[in-house]
């Protein structure tokens, strides 16, 4: 028996852009007629590679094209790449949610995929009933679930509520229970999308730990898609970097991540960004949405010093009457790891159609030398009541911490990565 778990050959997937609906019948008939005459599919004369930034001439686009790679047994492969690089499409094909257009994947072992936690959870059913339902959806038999039931409940930490309908759960409890079911799946090959981006930090750590255990101790093959370069470096043994539907690099996880950071992370010194038409990563309802963001007193190249205040003017528009909402932002390092977040109180209100301008000033940021970007969010709720986002824009503004002093004379030249992301400034030193 060979040691290959997954073998992907010439895999491609064609997607139709725009609205599917009108004209599909006539296209189908055309296609059928061409098929009968033994001609080629008249609508598949396509194909630009999947570069969403340039407008293509055809309505069809290759989401992934001619992928060839193998995954060995016991390998933990991190799949990375920008949004739209084809990572999700690849996972969907591997999980049999959609079929490839051409090519073939040969698999050795049972595959289970986790593209989302809690798929099929029914709000009216109790936690217990949902464990069985969700487990069965993920491919476990009733007997398997029953034998692991106690462990699942234990892992989730919601014993007390196990016979309560899950619609009464807090969102945290819901996610815990959902992940717990998935964590006890025991397939030979596990495919995980960014499901770890949910839940609190402690729970995330628990989940990452569980995944590591599974791959190390049981020798299971894992395919892991993530935007968190730190997580990929931590968990994965090898990496696959995708770009425009093709493989850019297949190497060790560390090398793939480093390559990605140095070649793919964009940095620009724009002072202002129009956010009205920027594509959002998540599917938030945008009841209140971002219009623009800009640095209030811009500095050259967006190079700030460790002592500068960073002030940002954000413009948001409300599409609903909202009595209380909050804004928040995060500072991320260029490897996409989050350095920190700020949540305002729910002190803002807006009438339908109203536009608000808000200045956020980050004082005494203590960021270490390096490139950063800002993400903005608007929504309701807080760390205690739970958070509902209305809009979220990633990588809106970029800046670099480069100087030691406000006058921008002393450039920081040395800051190895193992010194971390924080450069403490407020330390009181006193001799005793």
């Amino acid at each position: 028996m060979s040691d290959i778990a997954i073998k992907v050959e010439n895999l491609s997937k064609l997607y139709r852009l725009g609205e599917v609906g009108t004209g599909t019948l006539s296209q189908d008939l055309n296609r059928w007629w061409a098929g009968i005459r033994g001609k080629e599919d008249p609508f598949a004369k396509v194909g630009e590679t999947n570069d969403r930034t340039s407008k293509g001439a055809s309505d069809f686009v290759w989401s992934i094209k001619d992928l060839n790679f193998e995954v060995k047994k016991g390998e933990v492969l991190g799949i990375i790449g920008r949004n739209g690089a084809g990572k999700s499409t690849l996972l969907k094909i591997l999980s049999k949610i959609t079929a490839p257009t051409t090519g073939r994947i040969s698999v050795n072992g049972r595959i289970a995929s986790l593209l989302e936690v809690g798929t099929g959870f029914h709000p009216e059913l109790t936690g217990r009933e949902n464990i069985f339902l969700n487990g069965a959806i993920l491919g476990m038999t009733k007997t398997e679930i029953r034998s692991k039931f106690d462990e699942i409940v234990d892992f989730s930490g919601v014993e007390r509520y196990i016979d309560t309908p899950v619609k009464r759960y807090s969102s945290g409890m819901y996610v815990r229970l959902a992940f717990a079911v998935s964590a006890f799946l025991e397939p030979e090959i596990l495919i995980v999308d960014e499901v770890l981006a949910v839940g609190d930090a402690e729970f995330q750590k628990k989940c990452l730990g569980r995944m590591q255990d599974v791959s190390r101790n049981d020798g299971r093959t894992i395919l892991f898609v993530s935007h968190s370069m730190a997580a990929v470096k931590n968990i994965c043994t090898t990496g696959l970097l995708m770009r425009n539907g093709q493989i850019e690099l297949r190497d060790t996880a560390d090398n793939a991540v480093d390559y990605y950071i140095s070649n793919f992370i964009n940095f620009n010194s724009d002072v202002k960004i129009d956010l009205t038409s920027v594509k959002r990563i998540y599917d938030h309802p945008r009841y209140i949405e971002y219009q623009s963001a800009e640095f209030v007193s811009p500095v050259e190249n967006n190079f700030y010093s460790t002592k500068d205040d960073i002030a940002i003017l954000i413009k948001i528009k409300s599409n609903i009457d909202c009595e209380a909402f909050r804004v928040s932002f995060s500072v991320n390092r260029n490897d996409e790891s989050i350095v920190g977040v700020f949540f305002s109180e729910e002190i803002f209100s807006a009438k339908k159609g109203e536009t608000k301008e808000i200045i956020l000033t980050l004082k005494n940021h203590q960021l270490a030398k390096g490139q950063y970007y800002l993400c903005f969010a608007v929504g309701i709720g807080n760390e205690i009541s739970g958070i509902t986002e209305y809009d979220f824009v990633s990588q809106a503004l970029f800046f670099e911490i480069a100087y030691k002093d406000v006058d921008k004379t002393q450039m920081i030249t040395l800051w190895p990565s193992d010194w971390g992301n924080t450069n403490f400034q407020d330390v009181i030193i006193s001799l005793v």
Partner: protein
Amino acid sequence: MDSTTTLKKPEQVRTHDSEAEETWTEVIQPRTRLLELGLADVWRYRDLVMLFVRRDFVSTYKQTVLGPIWFFIQPLLTTLTYVIVFGNIAKLSTDGLPQMAFYLAGITVWNYFAHTLTSTSTVFRDNATMFGKVYFPRLTMPLSIVISNLVRFAIQLGLFVAVWLYYLLQGNNTIHPNWLIALTPLLVIIMGLLSLGLGMIFSALTTKYRDLAMLLAFGVQLLMYATPVIYPLSSITGWSRGLILANPMTSIVETFRYAFLGSGTFSWAALGYSTGVTFVVLLLGTIIFNRVQKSFTDTV
């Protein structure tokens, strides 16, 4: 560089290749063979089917005061309406049978068919988000609907039997039950499979052509009038009789009524015809359904 290429038909997999000798547990490919129905896969997920059934049953009646009693109320009220409208106002024939028993028999059978058909026909649309996130044999979904409607049917059959017994014990001499009652399970199976097949065809096609959902919504209502639910087949003559006989549900409703009430028409040929149609529809449905399930997330 010209990035435009023409899509070639997928190459045939070389089977003489030494590598193909390897035993893969699974191969994911663009198209499967027409008759590869994946029934073994469904069998592996049989627990899921039963859990779906349970979910349907529990979730429908949670937070209702009357709970499963609604299963009785709906056919009962429909029957009363029919007694008033079709029986007393329109004065349609009931073959001399008590109107309650006559209509209830038709409704019980028809309801099973109509409910199963309408709910299986929206399987892909209703579960698009779930189907887009995880793979399990999609067939489990319509199958679970057929089974959970069976539970509902059993309860409604109970209601019918109660009414039927009432008339029998009262000594009503228009009712003559006969041994064909033994065919009831067969009728239920044919009906279940027929609605499953039709439902699968519609659910597969509606992923692309939403128009069909509209068509089906009133189509089922209209079809009821082309089935002897509110009238006996014997009262229909002329060209429309052929139309009604072509409906595979006709013989099922008629046989059911003939078996329990002893009036109506029964012929093995008609029942055989329904069985034949059912198998053709079921086969067609499974093929189309399997075809669509592989790529429906792209078009839904």
